[in-house]
């Protein structure tokens, strides 16, 4: 089976491919090209005709375009490597390659990835017998074989480099080995934990939305029912448990009826674990925990598609514990418009920027996010602080401070490396 050479980047693709695996260029209409068959054609597209009486090889090459010469290797030129050597080389191994990937011309998903047509880079005047609208057809009298054409297209797709620019005499060779980066960030995260550092603590900022979430839950009656979407699992429980615990503690203290569902297979077990921990805590809230036990968390198979079914159940409030903003957005789109229940979100700090506009627009009535949100909500609960809980919050803040410091240091180091090494100094 012959590979299909991409007319844009020259990458080899399986025969029958609609789009290039590397650059996404449209390959429909291209024919296969053996590596040995270079001359005269580019991916099945006929080359511009040579002027009469002049052989293609005798076409003069412009002196200011050295990259058109055979064998030219530019400074920035990186030889293209085959992504899959076994498909580049047409080795007859006795097995029909066509059986590897059956290509059905009318298959269902053939057009999906091509929803947006890839931008075709302007190549040679008169290519394919077409010229740009409003432009007269230009004949350069130049004939390029596939290899040269590929090289020219590659150069055109890259950032322009001044031909007169001399290579910098300063060659950056002191690149930072990536494992050093890993080591630095690992130490920044691990040291505060193992050494139990207690500073720098900083100030936990009380973001808008925390107080509103607290007030909404605080006004619930014991007869109200609350829907809870548990959209995180142990992967993100390190942060989310801290955020969910005070909110869950408050909900249980209100004595409301809860319905807990999760779209994640490990979601119910995560919810069960946190609720067990919260129920086991000493009852220091204003009122005692209600005796009513929460409903057993359920796993809903089917993903987001089944979320609208929850919108058919009335509720006084919906609480979404989510690691990602998309889960809150899915609830706001699929469930909230149906049962009109106000929504409170308790999320990780990473989801906060994406969800804050929903708070400002009123689609969310409350937003508790990150360690800051957890600390603020705990303060609002007016629980008598325990030494253990204070130390826990302090450890989180110290860890967050040092990790962010390490990230800032890495960013500065990366920029310094680029400054010293120039554009191509990647460190």
């Amino acid at each position, binding site marked *: 089976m012959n590979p299909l050479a991409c007319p844009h980047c020259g990458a080899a693709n399986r025969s029958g491919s609609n789009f290039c695996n590397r650059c996404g260029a449209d390959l429909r209409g291209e024919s296969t090209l053996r590596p040995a068959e270079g001359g005269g054609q580019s991916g099945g597209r006929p080359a511009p005709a040579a002027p009469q009486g002049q052989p293609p090889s005798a076409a003069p090459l412009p002196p200011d375009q050295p990259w058109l010469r055979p064998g030219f290797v530019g400074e920035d030129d990186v030889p293209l490597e085959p992504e899959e050597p076994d498909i580049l080389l047409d080795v007859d191994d006795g097995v029909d390659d066509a059986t590897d990937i059956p290509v059905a011309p009318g298959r*269902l998903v053939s*057009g*999906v990835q091509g*929803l947006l047509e890839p931008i075709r880079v302007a190549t040679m005047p008169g290519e394919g017998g077409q010229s740009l609208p409003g432009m007269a057809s230009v004949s350069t009298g130049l004939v390029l074989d596939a290899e040269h054409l590929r090289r020219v297209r590659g150069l055109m797709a890259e*950032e322009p480099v001044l031909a007169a620019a001399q290579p910098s005499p300063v060659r950056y060779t002191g690149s930072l080995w*990536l494992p050093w*980066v*890993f080591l*630095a*960030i*690992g130490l920044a*995260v691990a040291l505060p934990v193992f050494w139990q550092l207690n500073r*720098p603590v*900083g*100030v*936990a*900022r009380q973001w808008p939305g925390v107080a509103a979430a607290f007030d909404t839950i605080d006004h619930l009656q014991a007869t109200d029912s609350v829907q809870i979407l548990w959209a995180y*699992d*142990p*992967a*993100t*429980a390190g942060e989310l448990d801290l955020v969910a615990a005070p909110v869950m503690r408050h909900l249980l203290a209100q004595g409301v009826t809860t319905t807990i569902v999760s779209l994640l*297979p*490990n979601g119910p*077990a*995560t919810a*069960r*674990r946190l609720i067990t921990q919260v129920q086991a805590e000493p009852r220091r809230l204003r009122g005692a925990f209600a005796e009513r036990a929460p409903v*057993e968390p359920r796993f*809903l*198979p*089917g*993903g987001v*598609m*089944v979320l*609208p*079914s929850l919108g*058919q159940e009335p509720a006084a409030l919906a609480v979404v514990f989510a690691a990602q903003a998309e889960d809150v957005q899915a609830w706001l789109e699929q469930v909230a418009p149906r049962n009109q229940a106000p929504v409170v979100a308790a999320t990780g*700090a990473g989801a906060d*920027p994406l969800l*804050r*506009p929903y708070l*400002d627009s009123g689609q969310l009535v409350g937003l508790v996010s990150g*360690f*800051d949100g957890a600390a603020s909500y705990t303060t609002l609960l007016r629980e008598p602080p325990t030494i253990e809980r204070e130390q826990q919050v302090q450890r989180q*803040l110290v860890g*967050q*401070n040092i*990790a*962010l*410091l*390490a*990230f*800032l240091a*890495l*960013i500065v180091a*990366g*920029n310094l490396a*680029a*400054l010293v090494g120039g554009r191509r100094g990647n460190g």
Partner: protein
Amino acid sequence: MVLIVDRTGILPALKPVMANFYQGLMLLGGVALLLGVVNAAWLHGRRIQTGQRDWVLSIVLLAVLLAVFVAGVISPQGATSPSMTWVFESVVAPGQAALFALLVFFMAAAAYRFLRIGRPGGAWMLAGALAVFLVQWPLAGAWLPVSIVDSTFWLVNQPVMAAVRGLLLGSGIAMLIVGLRLLLGKA
């Protein structure tokens, strides 16, 4: 089409129909999950049978699959049984947390390599990242001017969210068109 009509709310009589529809959907999801498990077991059984590379790992996978399955089935408490709870607490939770924790190394490498002023668009990305870093940094909470916090909020709430919603709207319309084309056989 039934879904679309139901979403418009013009036919309240569709509610019970849709309730059944969603129940069926959940059932399908559960069956799909089971089929996935059976498929994985069959594939790894074949690997062991034919002695393919790393077939020992396939044995481990099947043994663990069988152990967890039996632990869940034989106990009357099902998924809340002590054995299942132990599996979750001692194996699943630490494993998932450890794997997710590796993300910090990728983020560090990305921050080092790509948040650079000289890269195309890098200055914008760097400015955005620094703004969010500073605003969410507890250490900066004491001295960061409120105006910077408000400016970051404004950036996120107005231009950034406008762009995000524009993208969502565009992709939503595109998906709608693709769906219609599929339904009409034009794809």
